[in-house]
Structure formats: C-alpha cells, structure tokens
C-alpha cells in the first residue's frame, strides 16, 4: 500500500508520543501517505487507521476536518493562494487572476493535463510576504509578482 520509506516515516512520528497514544500520529501519517499518493483515497485512510490501531472512521474524521488533506485527486502541482484580507490588500486576487491567465483555470480547478491545481487558501501565516502561495503543501512562495509566478511555473514544468 505504502512504500517502506513512508512506513519508516510513520514510525518516526509514532515514536514522538506515549506508547498508548499512537493515534496522535494520525495527522502526520495521513500527510505522509498523501505525500506519496498525491491524495487520500478511502483505502489509504483505512490503511493508516489500521496501522495505528484506531477505527477507520476516526481517521476519516481527521482527514475531512483539516483543509490540507486532499480527498480527491489533484494536479501534480497544487498552488494554494492565500486570499485572506491582509494578502488581498497586497495583490492576492491579482495573483489569482494572473494564474487564471497563465493556466486557464480558477480556484478549485485543475488543468486538463493534470499538471496544476489552483486553490484559494485561508491564512497561511505569512502575510508580510503577500501575495503568498503554498506549493504542494510544502513550499511557501512569497511576494508572488507576475515575474515570480512565471519563474515558479517554469520550474514546475
């Protein structure tokens, strides 16, 4: 189901918590599973739950509660643009518009070739670098002027 590498990462997370509290690692393990699979299919969530000895429904509650888990397939590169007020005051919607021009898609959409998904996100805690976007949940890209967006899209090709 998941690679040995991912399972090794699972065990590293489990070790952070008291032995009888393995469920504490569920958020991290779901994230690791998503890193490998790209999104969380029901059977992936169930696998994580079984691994941690918790009811699948409890893992499903976590997967559906936190916004960075993907419950449907997304593009290879997910661009989450923060459009909250402080970012909106500094060009977030301009960034969304520019991405629409470049990729032909708006928030919540994926390019037909499956390469890019654009999402609108809530506060990413980086308002000083606005406009910001988060690449694949991992890389925070700040001050996303058109030139910077061009550079990022080129890099993702």
């Amino acid at each position, binding site marked *: 189901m998941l690679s040995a590498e991912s399972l090794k990462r699972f065990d590293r997370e489990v070790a*952070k*918590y*008291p032995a009888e*509290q393995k*469920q*504490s*690692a*569920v*958020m*991290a393990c*779901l*994230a690791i599973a998503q890193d490998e699979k790209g999104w969380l299919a029901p059977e992936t969530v169930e696998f994580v739950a079984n691994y*941690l000895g*918790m009811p699948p429904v*409890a893992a499903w*509650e*976590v997967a559906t*509660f*936190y*916004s*960075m*888990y993907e419950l449907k397939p997304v593009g290879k590169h997910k661009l*989450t643009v923060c*459009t*909250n*007020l*402080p970012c*909106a*005051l*500094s*060009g977030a*919607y*301009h960034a969304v518009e520019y991405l629409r021009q470049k990729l032909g898609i708006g928030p919540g959409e994926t390019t037909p070739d499956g390469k890019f998904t654009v999402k609108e*996100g*809530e*506060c*990413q*805690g*980086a*308002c*000083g*670098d*606005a*406009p910001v976007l*988060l690449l694949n*949940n*991992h*890389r*925070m890209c700040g*001050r996303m*002027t*058109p030139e910077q967006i061009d550079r990022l899209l080129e890099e993702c090709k």
Partner: protein
Amino acid sequence: MALLGNIHGVLTAGLNGDHSWRLKDYVARGGYEMLKKILAEQIPQEQVISEVKKSVLRGRGGAGFPTGLKWSFMPRSLPGDKYIVCNSDEGEPGTFKDRDILRYNPHSVIEGMAIAAYSIGATGGYNYIHGEIFEIYQRFEEALDEARAAGFIGQNILGSGFNFELFAHHGYGAYICGEETALLESIEGKKGQPRFKPPFPASFGLYGKPTTINNTETLASIPFILKMGGEEFLNLGKPNNGGTKLFSVSGHVKRPGNYEIPLGTPFSTLLEMAGGMRGGRKIKAVIPGGSSAPVIPGDVMMDTTMDYDAIAKAGSMLGSGAVIVMDETTCMVKSLERLSYFYYEESCGQCTPCREGTSWMYKIVHRIENGLGKPEDLDLLNNVLGNIMGRTICALGDAAALPVQSFVKHFRKEFEYHIEHKTCLVPKDVQWAGSGFHHFE
C-alpha cells in the same frame, strides 16, 4: 527576511536572517545560559515563576493572560506526567511573527520550553506548528536534533536529573487549532474541536494530564527575561504592559514585516518603521490585533500607543500584535466579506450559534457587497452577532462577531451606501489599483 526592524530588540537582537538560527549561533548570543544556570544551581521553581511574574509578561498569542500566573496554576508537585505545549499554530489573518521566531531563533523557543517545563514540573512537551509552514516545521525539527545532541533536552539534562522530552507536532490546516483545547484534541489525533472549560488544561490537559499551553513568542521571551531580570524587562515597556513585543504589520504599508518594539510605542512610530503608507495614500482603518480584533478608524489609531491597555481604551484588542493597515482605496464591505468568509470556513461546527451564525453573517455581508442588500440587513447582522457572542464553547464565535460589529459601527455609511446604490463607495478600479502588485523595497 521579514524581521525588518526593532527598538530595544530583545527577541530579535543579533539575528542575521537565515544565517544565525543554529545552536552554535544561539549559544554565541548567550543562549542556553539560563537553562544551565537554573539546573546547576537548582533554582527553586517558585523563584523562576516569581521572576516571570515580575516581568508582567502577558501571553503573546492573543489573550494577553499573565504568563507567570498561568504557570502558577499548575499542580507542580502532583506526581505523574505533566506537559508544556507551545502554540505555534499561527493562523489568525495578519499574524506572522511566530513563523519568524521559529525560523530565525528556534532555540530560544526550545530553551524557553525547557525552562517552563522545569518550572511547572513537566517532563513532556510538544510544539504544535501551523500546517502551512512546513519548511519552518522542518527547521524546528533540525533545531530539536541539535538541542538533543547537545544534551539540552532529553533524559538527565546536563547531569541535573531533570528529564524533558520535546517534539514537534505538525498541524494540517485548521485555524481553530490555535484555540488551546482544540490544539490538545488535535495532538491527540482528533478533529480540532474545543473542549468545554472547566476543567482547565492545568488540571485536565493533554491525555488528561495537567498541561500548560503558551504561545511561541511568550516561551521564546522566557530565557531573555530571566537573564535580564523580570523588572528590567517590565521597564522596557510600561506598567501592566511589560517588555517588547513583535508586531506583524501587513496591508497597505510600504514595508510589511515584523517589528519588535517596546509596548507603549506610538502607533505612528510603528507605521513609520514600516515605511509609512504605500503610495503615500491616506490611512483609513487599522485592525490592530489580528483579524478577530475590532477595526479602528485610522485617525483614532494614529493617536494610540501599541500596548494592551491603550488599544483596549481605543476600543479594540492588542491580540496577537497583527496590525492590518488599510488605506483610502479599501472597500470596508469587501474587506468584511472576506473576513466573514474566513470565520464561516473555519468554524469547527460544534456550537450551533457559531456554525449557523458565521454562515448567516457571511451570506448577509456577501449579498450587501454584491448589490443585493436590504435596508434591514444591518440590524439583522447585529441581531445575528448578538446571538453568537458569549454563547459558544470557545472564543471563535466572539472572534467572528467582533469584526462584523466594529466594521458596521465605524463604517455604517459605507454599508448603507452599498445597500442603497448596489455598489461600492470606493470605485472598483481604485480598489483594484490600491491593493495590487507593487514594488517592494
């Protein structure tokens, strides 16, 4: 680097961006000296707590609760596991200070947590890090590895017999987990839904054990406070508002970023440090303490100082120290619409007044913004928010209601104009130009 300046910098003194976050750099700045001293001299727990109380350090996460007092609530002589938890789930729109503390000075947080653990009798700790800042989480894990290898955390720290195991827990996108009991639920591997209080975490916290939760900036301040002495830290600020604080300045300023200044510094000084208003435009409004704090008209703000008491007197809250500045090109209805959407999206759904009320508030503001507002909508908004405030388990309900209440109160004419003319008072092209891409200095 988003740490752009300071006056009497304490937390940010001597930092050099990405080049000075490692253990060796922190030690060169005098880091871990306090932890060593406390453990070597076996300084009594009460004495550490009393020094923190003297500093009048107030919680930097938003509530402003005195840290020393919070620590004293812990049943520290009770046998069994106890925890210290650091709240780095920074997701309040406008706030980005803890990210920079973790990024540029992570060991100050680790040392602060170790000292806190010693003082409250905890042997376990977690730092809950906001989901979206994965790179910062990775860096913190690296800093933990360094601290562990050097013997500053782990078993029998520096031969003192004191044990403290510390780990990082990575969030995955939920504003509500910044609420301390939701954060505990989240560490336990559940949905982040706040718990009813009492019992308070000091008696029933993580895994049901006594737990203290402090904000990142609060914990990072501890080593510095103990080093300079509580009284000296207090005197950097003003009475009842001890020390310096980081302010995250965002919105329509020339140099958005973090600035560390003594509490009691005039807002006008902070604005000047941030380069003044972008494009030299006129200030219209300021949200002085994160999106949950009531908005204040710009002219009132220009006469206010940056401390808990002065901002409360001006009708808002210092909160997390997130200063969102809006200029004359801003449509207040559009701004409130975005904020209301945030609370609607982030309500955890547990309490009916918040779950339903945030949805109502967003829908009403949305229809006003889109030219479908009705004359009675402003009263309806006040009615809805009145039915949320004070009727929910946690503070998110109030946090969602306060912006609505204050925007309508201070900018009622703009809302009325929208309803009557079915469009913005500030022309849309002016808004678009005002909030657009700009050249950063």
